[in-house]
């Protein structure tokens, strides 16, 4: 740990709207150059957290800093360092994408630079529409223009609030590689997304917020290791027969002890891969009656982690 300030740091950040608690004291520290994903169900407080850090919402309590600059006391210095892609699409119907990007550079105290504007338009596949009125852009194009506005002034910290909602798959992949490129150039990226696949593909660390509270925070790999479970999916040649005296079919006791479950068809057994030897498990599965037809493994996903963390009331599972 060196003496450099965190890219973004919040201490006990709170926001109340009358009786509603939108943020109940979120403390986070995001290092420079990180890609950090903020996950949570709708209304969890992700956008509120980003909005406070970007100066759009005033915190009820707590502090937020961007690269050491307090977002209230030193607001202008903090704002110079950030770029924001808001969740809601907005556009100015009087201007073209090229003009909008040039204005955006100017707002940040930079002389409009045609080369830089062209570079961003190209990166976001908007060159063909550079001089078309923004009204004529499709929804996906408008969202890409929002991303361009957040990036054109080369901010050191970029907040992407649902950046790829409504963007087609191919372009989403392009944007991911652009985000990675930005990180390589030293930009810190903070993103919220509903596509957990996106967070899994991009993020170095993930925070899960639920009901205004931080319920999980760790590297993506550690969260997957801790909360995601690799499991075997076993398809049997015939449905499992009923246990004498029981109405429903049942698995052998040793399999139930491992946490295995049987699906409604009675043919698919899902068994978590625990600490034991996979070879020993496979050997025991070979003794099943009816016999095994096929075996598949399922990788742990961030979706599992997300569901595990957000299903715990008041979780409080905070790593590092």
């Amino acid at each position, binding site marked *: 740990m060196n003496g450099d300030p965190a890219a973004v740091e919040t201490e006990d950040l709170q926001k109340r*709207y009358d009786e509603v608690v939108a943020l109940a004291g979120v403390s986070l520290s995001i290092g420079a150059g990180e890609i950090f994903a903020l996950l949570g169900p709708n209304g969890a407080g992700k956008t509120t957290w980003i*909005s406070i850090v*970007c*100066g*759009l*919402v*005033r915190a009820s309590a707590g502090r937020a800093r961007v690269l050491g600059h307090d977002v209230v006391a030193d607001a*202008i*210095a903090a*704002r*110079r360092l*950030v770029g*924001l892609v*808001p969740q*809601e*699409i*907005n*556009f*100015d*119907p*009087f*201007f073209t994408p090229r*003009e909008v990007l*040039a*204005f*955006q*550079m*100017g*707002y*940040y*105290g*930079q*002389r*409009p630079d045609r080369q830089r504007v062209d570079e961003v338009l190209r990166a976001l596949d908007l060159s063909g529409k550079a001089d078309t009125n923004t009204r004529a852009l499709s929804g996906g194009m408008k969202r890409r223009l929002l991303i361009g*506005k957040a990036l054109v002034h080369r901010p050191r910290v970029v907040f992407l609030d649902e950046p790829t909602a409504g963007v087609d798959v191919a372009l989403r992949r392009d944007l991911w590689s652009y985000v990675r490129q930005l990180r390589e150039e030293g930009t810190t990226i903070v993103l919220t997304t509903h596509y957990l696949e996106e967070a899994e593909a991009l993020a170095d660390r993930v925070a899960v917020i639920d009901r205004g509270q931080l319920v999980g925070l760790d590297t993506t790999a550690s969260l997957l290791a801790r909360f995601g479970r690799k499991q075997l999916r076993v398809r049997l040649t015939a449905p499992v027969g009923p246990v004498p005296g029981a109405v429903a079919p049942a698995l052998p006791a040793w399999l139930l002890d491992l946490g295995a479950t049987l699906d409604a068809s009675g043919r698919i057994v899902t068994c978590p891969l625990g600490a034991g030897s996979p070879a020993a498990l496979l050997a025991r599965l070979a003794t099943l009656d009816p016999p095994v037809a096929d075996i598949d493994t399922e990788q742990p996903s961030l979706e599992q982690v997300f569901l595990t963390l957000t299903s715990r009331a008041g979780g409080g599972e905070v790593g590092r």
Partner: protein
Amino acid sequence: MNAIGFRTLFIKETRRFLRVPGQTLAQPVVTTALYFLVCGYARGGRVREVGGVPYGRFIMPGLILLGLSQNAFLNTSSSMFIAKLQGTIVDLLVAPLGVVDLLLAFNLAAILRGMLVGGIVWFISALFTGFEVSHPLWVLMFGFLVGLTFGLVGLVVAIWSDKFEQLNIVPTFIITPLTFLGGVFYSADMLPPPWSYISRVNPVLYMVEGLRYGVVGASSSSPWLGLAVTGGIGLLSLALASWMLAAGYKLRS
């Protein structure tokens, strides 16, 4: 101060109204020319002069003020309100633009539009009444102040408004009636009491008279009073707009 930021926003606000010249420049010109033709000639047939000033020249300053004030008001109010409605206000709120940058950029563009319209109205009126201006520097200075004041009022109203209906309250129910009852077409001295006294409570009367002094060289009240009233309203609006922007009133939740 963010000089490039301020200049960029000023250019953007100026380009915005120049993009729709039919709505922002031509429309008020046509309206005012019609006012001039109908009121100036129809009434001018019976009322040949007011206080020794030919009727056409007498109404010219009021029409200029009407165009100038309405357009300065509309520039800030429509831009700010549309930005709130479309969500593009986020661009300005997240950017490193301070209160001074925002106030200067929005209001200088409003003054420019107001003075452009005022200038065009003067030109069209002058085709009928002559191009002579008694105190041109006073007219420019006074016009600038009126533009600034109404630009600030427009900003305040747009920040306060949540609906288009609220936005229209001020031009429809305040600016236009006060201007029409503010001695544009008559002198307050021509009204019988108590209307002449009631007229003198109307601040727009002093603005019209202030501009009338500059254009025709005569007014029914001191032009300095007009300057003081305009400056007073301007200062009040400046304080209110500055507070709204600094506190984030209805802008930052």
